[in-house]
């Protein structure tokens, strides 16, 4: 998603992680502000939109750059209730957002069995399907493995996918009927982390365009109990990891000077 237009020069890639930012603030700052720009790994806080993070950075850049509107963008939207790695790019490096978006994503996922909701997470009212959940670890393991490979996934109707120029969640919220089309995605890895029924935690590595909420919903159907997403953290995009990401406050400290 690109915010503003600016005819920017070719990027010389500088990826600003926690280490680069904290060990040498002046040069991190210079890279971020330069016409070539930089790529920044940010840990998105709970409850904020991805767009909010972009707008914070844009506001922070404004007093320091000589162009009226410096380009800032992000790769791969995270839902407001999700946390974790969001990759931002400034100025020339916004050209790289396409590639950043293409990369596989890794998510730590916690779900609760026995519940369903229209959005497949806690953003919409939940309905209890069952309170008795009797599923073995082996069964969970095997259902997770069945997610591996290519599949045609049905995105949730509560999603920002656009139809007739408008995000479909607007229609869904009004209670209007929405017809979604499947998308071809693939799941590269699925790893069970812990079982504490009715909660299950696992990690997924998947292609771009994958809706984790839909994976969770499908798992709930396979178990016959329903399932909703309760916690979601993106812990990696390609080889870039959330442990190396900076906080929004780090950016404020760096640029508010």
């Amino acid at each position, binding site marked *: 998603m690109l915010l503003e237009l600016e005819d920017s*020069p*070719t*990027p*010389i*890639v500088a*990826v600003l992680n926690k280490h680069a930012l904290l060990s040498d603030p002046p040069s991190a700052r210079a890279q971020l502000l330069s016409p070539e720009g930089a*790529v920044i790994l940010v840990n998105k806080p709970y409850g904020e939109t991805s767009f909010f993070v972009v707008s914070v950075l844009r506001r922070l850049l404004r007093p320091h750059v000589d162009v009226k509107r410096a380009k800032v963008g992000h790769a791969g939207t995270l839902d407001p209730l999700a946390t974790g790695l969001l990759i931002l790019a400034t100025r020339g*490096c916004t*050209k*790289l957002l396409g*590639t*950043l978006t*293409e*990369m596989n994503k890794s998510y730590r996922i916690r779900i609760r069995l026995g519940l369903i909701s229209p959005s497949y997470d806690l953003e919409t009212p939940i309905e209890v399907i069952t309170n008795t959940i009797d599923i073995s670890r082996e069964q969970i393991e095997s259902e997770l493995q069945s997610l591996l*490979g*290519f*599949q045609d996934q049905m995105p949730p109707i509560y999603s920002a996918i656009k139809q007739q120029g408008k995000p479909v969640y607007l229609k869904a919220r009004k209670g209007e009927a929405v017809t979604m089309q499947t998308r071809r995605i*693939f799941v590269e890895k699925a790893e069970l982390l812990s079982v504490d029924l009715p909660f299950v935690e696992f990690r997924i590595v998947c*292609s771009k365009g994958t809706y984790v909420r839909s994976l969770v919903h499908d798992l709930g159907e396979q178990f016959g109990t329903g399932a909703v997403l309760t916690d979601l953290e993106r812990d990696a995009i*390609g*080889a*870039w990891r959330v442990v190396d990401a900076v906080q929004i406050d780090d950016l404020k400290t760096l640029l508010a000077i």
Partner: protein
Amino acid sequence: MKIIWGLENATHDPRTIVTLGSYDGVHLGHREIIQRLCTKKRELGLSRAVLLTFHPHPQQVLRRHNSSVALLTTMDERLKLLATTGIDEVIIIEFTEQFSKTSYLDFFRDTIVTRLGTKAMVVGFNHAFGKDRQGDAMRLKSLAPQLGVDVEEVPPLIVDGISVSSTKIRHALEDGKLPEAAGLLGRNYSFSGVVVRGEQLGRTIGYPTANLEIPVGKLIPADGVYAVTVGLDGVSYNGALSIGNRPTVVDGGKQTVEVYLLDFEGDLYSKELAVECVAYIRAQETLNGLDRLKAKIAEDVARVRILLP
């Protein structure tokens, strides 16, 4: 794993189990058949699992007059991959037009059963051999009892709703669909090439590339730019690979395969590079002048750095 070049050098062993085919790519479907071959060998108490294969690839001999098929693996690569599968012996039969006229019955009875001492066979669902490809699983099975051979057909391996076949992998690579190809192959597509002298245009714009000579008959993926890893003398480098006819610098030129190694300095001439294609970055583009080309390459290199940190 023993490698026998030429049927005349093969030995007789009455406890032999055989599969045959070109096994180009040694993909997941092939591995499934070989796994069954090795399991069956133990079940029947046999001692020698043999893969009978052909060189050159039958389609390259039989289609000589029109377009010949591009292969996923050279014979060398194929043998290296097969060596990791549990096969005891690979027998490479020289495939000639003369040989192609052998009937499946003669080949099955005289060579496979009598000459090699075969007691059991495992064949892929779509495999057929002999003159006009008449030797399919059904015919072999019907002949099996009178020749005292156990013939088993392995059904197709389905990955994500697609039956794994070398042809489907070739098409995916020719369309630039790397994840699909890797999903069916069970690994990234790779090739090796020797560095030959090019026009040395790259170095004038700050991106010296190594021009690779790819073995004849080896499949070259779709034109475009790729993020790759490059093996050189046991060290791995990241690189930007460009395949195409260089429309920005020449008109109607021939296809070249060139790679720019990141963070490498040195002479690469006549070295062999092993290239593994990790991601497809973009299609080939015609740019307006060398400055634009240079900027585009800088961008490609930045993408490689992001994809392969």
